[in-house]
């Protein structure tokens, strides 16, 4: 997107932004509607994170222009995601490594 220079190009992008906004609003409604179905925790978690990931991807790809970014930005992001996954895996791993004491809610 940062390469887009002509006014016509930008006008096309504006139409895309409006479409993405509509999609994000609709997906937010779906997220809330699913929450009222009172699903058990595992399916509820999967559905909620699945929809959130779609919404997050739309924001990142179109509003943050990641759909047409330079390689170095992708390299930064891939490295970040690798560290983030390591953080989650280590945290969950440390939970299973406990003596089994429950955490006070």
């Amino acid at each position, binding site marked *: 997107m940062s390469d887009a220079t002509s006014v016509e190009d930008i006008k096309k992008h504006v139409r895309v932004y409006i479409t993405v906004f509509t999609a994000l609003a609709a997906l*937010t409604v779906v997220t809330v509607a699913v*929450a009222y179905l009172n699903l058990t925790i595992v399916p509820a978690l999967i559905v909620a994170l699945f929809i*959130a990931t779609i919404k997050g991807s739309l924001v990142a790809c179109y509003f943050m222009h990641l759909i047409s970014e330079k390689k170095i930005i992708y390299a930064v992001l891939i490295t970040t995601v690798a560290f983030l996954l390591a953080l*989650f895996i280590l945290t*969950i791993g440390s*939970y299973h490594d406990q003596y089994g004491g429950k955490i006070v809610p």
Partner: protein
Amino acid sequence: MEIPYTVAARPDTGVNNAKLGVWLFLASEVMLFGGLFSAYVFLRVGAPEWPGMIGDHQFARSSDILNIPIGFFDTLVLIASSVTMVMSWASLKMNNFGKYKLYMSLTILCAVIFLVVKSFEYGDKFSHGFYPAESSFLAIYFTLTGLHGLHVIGGIIVNSYLLGPGSKMWKTDGERFTNRIEIAGLYWHFVDLVWIFLFPTIYLL
């Protein structure tokens, strides 16, 4: 001395310095929120009930404590602010400074609405005795939403500067100013993105 590569792409990276800089900053932000999210998962997986006992009451779901319609409204407001933010950048690209001012004002207005609603929400929790020290659920709720709220305040400060005194640059160096809006936008969309994950995980599960 002139700061190099504020507009032109650096030959070795292919992007201008500001863009690479903000993405590196956002990478650190991902780890900051990621650490708190993993703390949330850790507490949640280890707890026999969630939110569980708070004071004399047993709560089976977080939606028994948090107000879903308010969270839903806040989500829509933040999404709308992301659109107005990107529209302010697009307006500058189309050489329309008047529309830039309009869209940037709307972005700041949405951010203020978000914070006002959040402060009422906090006030309601406090009035019921729901403080961070009362339970793990409330501790992680206030920590995550509080940190996110601080980011919203940061965004309001930066965007207000770019709407007010900072906008003088449009006349002297329009292209650089447009880049600044894109960079501020990247930060703002990230703040929106964090909320997109916060809302379902904290309010709805």
